[in-house]
């Protein structure tokens, strides 16, 4: 999130924060852990009304942003999601909405209305299981057949696949990367829920077993979807970055408060220089992560040529350093920080989920080396 927001953005931030404070309290999150979907449809529709699903879709397709810079606005929501461990498929829904708005046919754009309204859920089937789990590896095949395509392979983990009505599948034809938009209920698609590190975020394994789709299911250029896929990855990473920053910011604040309140050997923890210096390091990681997230949001918004490297630098830095920040905050809490009763694990879970998906830091470092050598 930027250092300064304009008045409309600030109002948007407050509205989302107020809504999440009421609807996504730690008690609610804990209760939702037992819910197979991780959220209630009514909650998602209300979030959609606040603008969570429209920001990356231009006005002519029924969307709209707050400031005219939707990617930047979206970091405000993602930051709030991190601060509240908010439930709901924020990342996949926005990625798919943006992809449809950008490259979809008129028919495919019919999905945008229900997605923006919060009635339709969407999932992006991108990552694949080992041995195809290197960032950007796509082994799912799309074979031309009788005017349509047949999709085969496995995607996993796919966020919100079990809740989604439509799937955006990144596959490979003989010509190159090709993406398809299909109903989750298509014959041959099997969605098997996975266990999730996050209490309310759901992942699934999606098996595509000879799935027949019409030619009209292809979205964007057949064999030429590289730029679309890159854009989707950048959008996912922007949201992850902002969400990790929000979660870490919140955790840092209550851990600092704890350090003032907790006494040992007759002194508050906050008076020990060893701990003061660790808080200083954590503050540095946080501010650098904020800076990277803002820079990335601006670059993805403006589609600058350097955005791929910035996305990877942000993911590599934030994924490593804010995960470390979370663990150090657990350490400063002591034993209580490892209990299920304390809230800190809710945030640690979300940061761990974000760190581990759409490329781990090591993947992104390799990607940077490939981009510059």
């Amino acid at each position, binding site marked *: 999130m930027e*250092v*300064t927001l304009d008045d409309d953005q600030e109002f948007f931030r407050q509205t989302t924060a107020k809504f999440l404070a009421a609807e996504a309290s730690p008690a609610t999150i804990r209760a939702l852990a037992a819910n197979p979907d991780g959220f209630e449809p009514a909650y998602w529709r209300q979030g959609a009304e606040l603008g969570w699903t429209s920001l990356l879709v231009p006005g002519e397709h029924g969307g709209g942003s707050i400031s005219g810079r939707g990617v930047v606005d979206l970091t405000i929501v993602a930051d709030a999601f991190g601060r509240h461990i908010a439930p709901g498929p924020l990342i996949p829904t926005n990625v798919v909405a943006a992809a449809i708005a950008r490259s979809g046919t008129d028919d495919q754009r019919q999905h945008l209305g229900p997605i923006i309204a919060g009635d339709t859920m969407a999932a992006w089937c991108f990552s694949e299981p080992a041995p195809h789990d290197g960032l950007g590896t796509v082994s799912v095949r799309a074979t031309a057949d009788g005017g349509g395509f047949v999709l085969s392979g496995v995607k996993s983990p796919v966020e919100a696949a079990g809740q989604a009505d439509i799937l955006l599948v990144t596959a490979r034809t003989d010509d190159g990367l090709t993406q398809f938009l299909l109903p989750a209920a298509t014959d041959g698609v099997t969605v098997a829920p996975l266990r999730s590190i996050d209490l309310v975020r759901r992942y699934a394994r999606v098996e595509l077993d000879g799935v027949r789709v019409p030619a009209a299911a292809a979205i964007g250029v057949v064999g030429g979807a590289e730029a679309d896929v890159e854009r989707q990855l950048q959008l996912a990473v922007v949201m992850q970055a902002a969400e990790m920053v929000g979660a870490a910011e919140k955790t840092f604040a209550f851990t*600092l408060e704890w*350090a*003032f309140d907790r006494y040992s050997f007759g002194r*508050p923890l*906050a*008076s020990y*220089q060893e701990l*003061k*210096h660790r*808080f*200083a*390091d954590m*503050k*540095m990681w946080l*501010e*650098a*992560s*904020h*800076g*990277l997230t*803002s*820079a990335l949001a601006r670059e993805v918004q403006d589609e600058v040529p*350097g955005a791929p*490297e*910035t996305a*990877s*630098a942000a993911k*590599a*830095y934030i994924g490593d350093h804010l995960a470390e920040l979370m663990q150090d905050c657990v350490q400063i809490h002591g034993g209580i920080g490892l209990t299920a009763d304390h809230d800190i694990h809710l945030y640690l879970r979300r940061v761990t989920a974000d760190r581990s998906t759409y490329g781990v830091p*090591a993947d*992104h*470092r*390799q*990607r*940077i*080396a*490939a981009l*510059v*050598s």
Partner: protein
Amino acid sequence: MTDTKRESGVTDTEMESVESFAARSRAWLAENMPRTDGPAMNRGFGFGSDEEELAAVKRAREMQRTLFDGGFAGICFPREYGGQGLTTRHQQAFNVECAGYEMPSLFNVPTFVPCGAVLLEFGTEEQKTKHIPAMLRGEELWMQFLSEPSGGSDVAGALTTAVRDGEEWVVNGSKIWTTGAWWSDYGLCLLRTNWDVPKHRGLSVFIIKIQQPGVEVQRIEMINGSREFCQEFMTDVRVPDADRVGEIDDGWTIGRRWMFHERNAMGGGSPFVSGPATGHRVEAARVDPYVALARSAGRLEDPRARDLIGEARTLQRAATELSNRIADGMAAGAFPDTMAAIARLMSAVVGIRAANIRLDLVGAAAAAWADGDGVAGVGTNYLMRQQAAIGGGTTEMARNNISERVLGMPRERTLDKDVPFREVPKGPPAR
């Protein structure tokens, strides 16, 4: 008003837009400044012969003059003192545009910051009018006479003393860790003017001409062979009272702002520093320096080396964006000035890791190499790794500052607060 500005149609009453300024900078730089595709990690001053060093200083002075004549010197300094009177955003835009050009960056630290910045805040009208335009024209190079052999981070514990004698002060003592004092013109000097009050209440700031009898400059040889640093011995140096900056015994008011400006410059957030930001310098180089190093070492295809390249670029980018964020936040009044310590710490943390990465990229060549190898110098630079965490205030001080002044955590206990400085415990006298 400069000719360039007149041509651009900008009047005194309206400030030129950042976009227009960037475009004008781009055109002017292409026309007037030499391109460079030299290595991004240059060895800096203090390595060549004295003749080479003096030639480099002369060239920096000339280039600074070219910038001044073109209307691009002192972008954030006020116009009445020869600057351009523009904003941080203009300076940032210029820093992007000037990547790939040779720039007189020798002037940035410590001449413009902290010395120029301190004069601007605390100097008399006469001092500002005399010195700031001269700095911007490339005529005056300044040094900070701050640290002493008796204490590094504890700069307020200065022992070097000025004693009043009519309209003059008589200075005795020693300052250390000045870069290139032997070719510099002035020192901004923190001196003890009262031993009978607590430490922070008996200091004053003076402007001292370096090239004069009574100021003996000795050069210090560092581990890597650099002779950039100097120590000055001042013996009965007479300084006119007109060269005192700020009130007598109130030098620490200045000292704290002085430290702030220094930290801000170290962290890359000072509006008075002009020249390519680190990240942009790397982007402007035709080949990433880490890629070049890995290639020279024959390791470019090694996934471990590629991980290190990715990490180095990640950290540099993080440091750049942190500096930008803090500069933006301070300019907008959203962040306290104390946050400059965060960027200062980051520059050290990243610098240390970068030195380790370079060491790992070259392998055994850090220990043994042939002249002319692409990997030469990596091992020797590694020996100086901690310089990034010592010079300009140690990282320990930065971490204290962040925790105490940004996060409000309890201050460390000290034994030098409410007693006359004369009675504060001190170690044996240093050289």
